[in-house]
């Protein structure tokens, strides 16, 4: 739209504004506008960046792509791997090869047949050095990949690699539209063609992305006719849109969930859901500093922190205490970790005394003339982390540890402090991957600059267990490794694991058929429906 025309339109529009009526239109909006009640509108803070999944890393893009594409495998509602485009698969006896048997009769949204050629293309383009993707790592472990026939695909690895299977959950791209073309300039990044339950319809930049039901979907057509992402960058605006009927679904904050949505009117119009999110928040220590090299000091800090108070104060109870890097309820999570230090200020004081600290005159512990004092850094724009830091500050003060808090913009935080190791303690969070492999964050080989074990934790026993855990496909054997790992981490306290927050989605009560499960509520989206 040219500028002049746009201006003219808006001026006309403003003149008309006076005579436009409000109320009936609002009702219409609440039910998907002229698209009817079976259109579901959801709010998204961010705008997708690129709808070719291997080229983007943001959650808005992967949310949309998740409905348009399929992978070979996926996680079911109980977070177990199941076949998606692959009907079934076999792991060879030596644990090095996987053979996928692909589903027949699956069609791309443009009518082409889906075959093993698409899988092979997706693999090749991902590892192609010319493709600017962040996801090549898992596929680089592959030694050879071949399309045996149209519906059989075989890969071989150099060494047994348990996360391999899950890595084939990567969305499969249409070879017939992309092969031989430059993927970064493909129109598919703005109008994707997939095999998934929803067909891409339109993307109005800065405003919305609209998907329509795929009547040919291999699991049956979704019962909702349209799925719309409205881009609303401000969360209070989004909440008001929800109340006014402009959107049907969003994630609530703990305050909204607990304090603002318990009216009878709201509960009649919406259903609230609650389940643990796949993320945890932690207090990490720079283990290269002498003060934190003493395990007793780390244990003492954990003992001095009342995690329950943090969950109550920061999340209003909408979360659980964390003891380790796994999500409660998943198969790798150990429910009772014996070595986990409970909240116990007396024990904390004892540990600090053992470590050689004595109380100074100003109420701060001192060792060799140096006060026990450190700074917790966290990133700007995350109020929960700041609040948690403040609660910790107060608790540690009581046992004689002086804590300062510094909040910083994300980019300078990473470049000037994390990457250079110039920090004492950080309050940050990790997302919990669906595969329990911990290599990237905890293995001692990952302590280099820009690598994720930035606290510098090195423990040969832990390294051995991590490698053992990723080297077998046997879930029981893996579980044993991860249970032991949780004990070691609880003993060593390289982090104080703080909490796992809850995801708090809310959906209009017009939509039926939602089944909350460990994986959340989106797993059976195609069976959601609306009573007309």
């Amino acid at each position, binding site marked *: 739209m040219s500028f002049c025309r746009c201006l003219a339109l808006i001026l006309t529009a*403003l003149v008309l504004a006076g005579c436009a009526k409000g109320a009936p239109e609002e009702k219409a909006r609440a039910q998907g506008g002229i698209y009817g009640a079976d259109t579901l509108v959801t709010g998204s803070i961010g705008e997708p960046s690129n709808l070719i999944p291997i080229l983007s890393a943001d959650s808005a893009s992967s949310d949309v792509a998740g409905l348009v594409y399929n992978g070979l495998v996926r996680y079911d509602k109980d977070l177990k791997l199941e076949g998606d485009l692959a009907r079934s698969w076999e792991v060879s006896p030596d644990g090095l090869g996987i053979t996928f048997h692909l589903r027949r009769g699956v069609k791309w949204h443009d009518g082409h047949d889906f075959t093993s050629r698409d899988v092979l293309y997706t693999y090749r383009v991902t590892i192609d050095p010319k493709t600017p993707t962040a996801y090549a790592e898992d596929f680089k472990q592959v030694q050879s990949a071949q399309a045996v026939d149209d519906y059989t695909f075989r890969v071989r690895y150099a060494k047994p690699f348990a996360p391999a299977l899950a890595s084939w959950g990567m969305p499969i791209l249409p070879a017939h539209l992309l092969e031989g073309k430059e993927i970064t300039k493909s129109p598919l990044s703005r109008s994707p063609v997939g095999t998934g339950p929803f067909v891409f319809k339109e993307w109005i930049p800065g405003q919305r992305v609209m998907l329509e039901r795929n009547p040919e979907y291999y699991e049956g057509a979704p019962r909702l006719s349209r799925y719309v992402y409205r881009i609303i960058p401000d969360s209070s605006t989004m909440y008001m849109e929800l109340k006014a009927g402009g959107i049907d679904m969003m994630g609530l904050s703990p305050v909204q969930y607990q304090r603002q949505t318990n009216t009878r009117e709201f509960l009649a119009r919406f259903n609230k859901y609650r389940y643990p999110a796949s993320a945890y928040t932690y207090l990490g220590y720079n283990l290269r500093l002498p003060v934190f090299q003493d395990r007793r000091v780390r244990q003492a800090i954990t003992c001095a922190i009342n995690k329950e108070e943090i969950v109550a104060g920061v999340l209003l109870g909408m979360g659980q205490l964390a003891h380790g890097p796994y999500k409660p309820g998943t198969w790798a999570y150990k429910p009772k970790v014996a070595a986990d230090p409970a909240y116990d200020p007396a024990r904390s004081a004892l540990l600090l005394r053992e470590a050689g600290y004595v109380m100074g005159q100003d109420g701060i512990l001192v060792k060799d003339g140096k006060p026990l004092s450190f700074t917790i850094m966290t990133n700007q724009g995350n109020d929960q982390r700041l609040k948690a830091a403040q609660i910790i500050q107060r608790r540690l003060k009581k046992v004689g540890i002086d804590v300062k808090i510094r909040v910083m913009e994300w980019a300078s935080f990473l470049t000037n402090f994390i990457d250079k190791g110039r920090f004492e303690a950080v309050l940050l969070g990790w997302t919990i991957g669906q595969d329990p492999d911990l290599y990237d964050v905890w293995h001692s080989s990952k302590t280099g600059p820009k690598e994720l074990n930035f606290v510098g934790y090195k423990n040969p026993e832990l390294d051995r267990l991590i490698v053992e855990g990723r080297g077998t496909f046997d879930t029981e054997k893996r579980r044993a490794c991860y249970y032991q790992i949780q004990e070691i981490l609880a003993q060593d306290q390289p982090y104080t694991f703080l909490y796992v927050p809850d995801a708090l989605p809310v959906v209009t009560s017009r939509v039926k058929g939602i089944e909350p499960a460990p994986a959340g509520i989106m797993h059976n989206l195609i069976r959601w429906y609306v009573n007309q």
Partner: protein
Amino acid sequence: MANYLIKRILMLIPLLIGITLITFTVIHLAPGEPVEMQTAMSPKVSAQSRARLREFYGLDKPLYVQYGLWISHLARLDFGRSFAPDNRPVLDKIKERIPITISLNVIALILEFGIAIPIGIMAAVHRDTLLDRGISVFVFVGFAVPTFWLALLCMYLFGVKLSWLPISGIHSLGSEHLPFLARMGDMAKHLLLPVAIATFGSLAGLSRYMRSTMLEVLSQDYITTARAKGVKERIVIYRHALKNALLPVITLLGFSLPGLIGGSVIFETIFAIPGMGQLFYQGVMARDYPLVMGILVIGACLTLIGNLLADLSYALADPRIRHGRG
């Protein structure tokens, strides 16, 4: 005059080069790189993938080479491709955002001048009366109240409680299928709140300025003469005084022209308006160098053109400037 014009235009060239240099330096001084922002703290990204991304964006080359490449493209009016994962041409991204921003700014500007000038005159004419004080209070409330807060309150009142107006965005879902007039009405309702609040917040400066210039003019001898001659008060004010009082205000209008392409981030974020402010902010946060530099260069050029036009009109009005005799 032609000489003056040529001199002024030649002077723009070093200025433009300076602007590109400063723009480039400032954005590269900010900590963090585009690749960093996309891949930091992601367990799946290895050092090789990071190096691969840097190479793809040309970030592995020395800074002066990067600057040279950028400036040589810029000379051909090629703003390059965005460093965001979509990798789209910067110009496309700006093009789809700029109409709504300029339109909103123009409407708000028209309203601002259309309201602030009359109430400024009114305040001057009725100096020190209840009306004057009332106007002062009104415009200063607008000035002092944080717009985002007022915006949220209005959205809650008109959108949630009364359901008179939509809350955010610029179109309703499916409005593209409506007939033309209904579509316009729909857009108008979406824009009513943002425009009204933006205007309310900007009245103070201009109306107070108008009031003081008007008072100054009204105290001059020729006004007293006009009144002494028995000219009607209405004619004294609107024919004799207003013309002179408006001159400096027109200069103010000139100053506000470059601001037309800049959007307010907070405003656009709250109302979910896909304008330039949001684009620029996201660009800065993601360290999207080409996008940020593109917007800055366009803004700077507009400012230069605005200044040039202002100087030229002065020159037209004042022969002393034109002939360089100060």
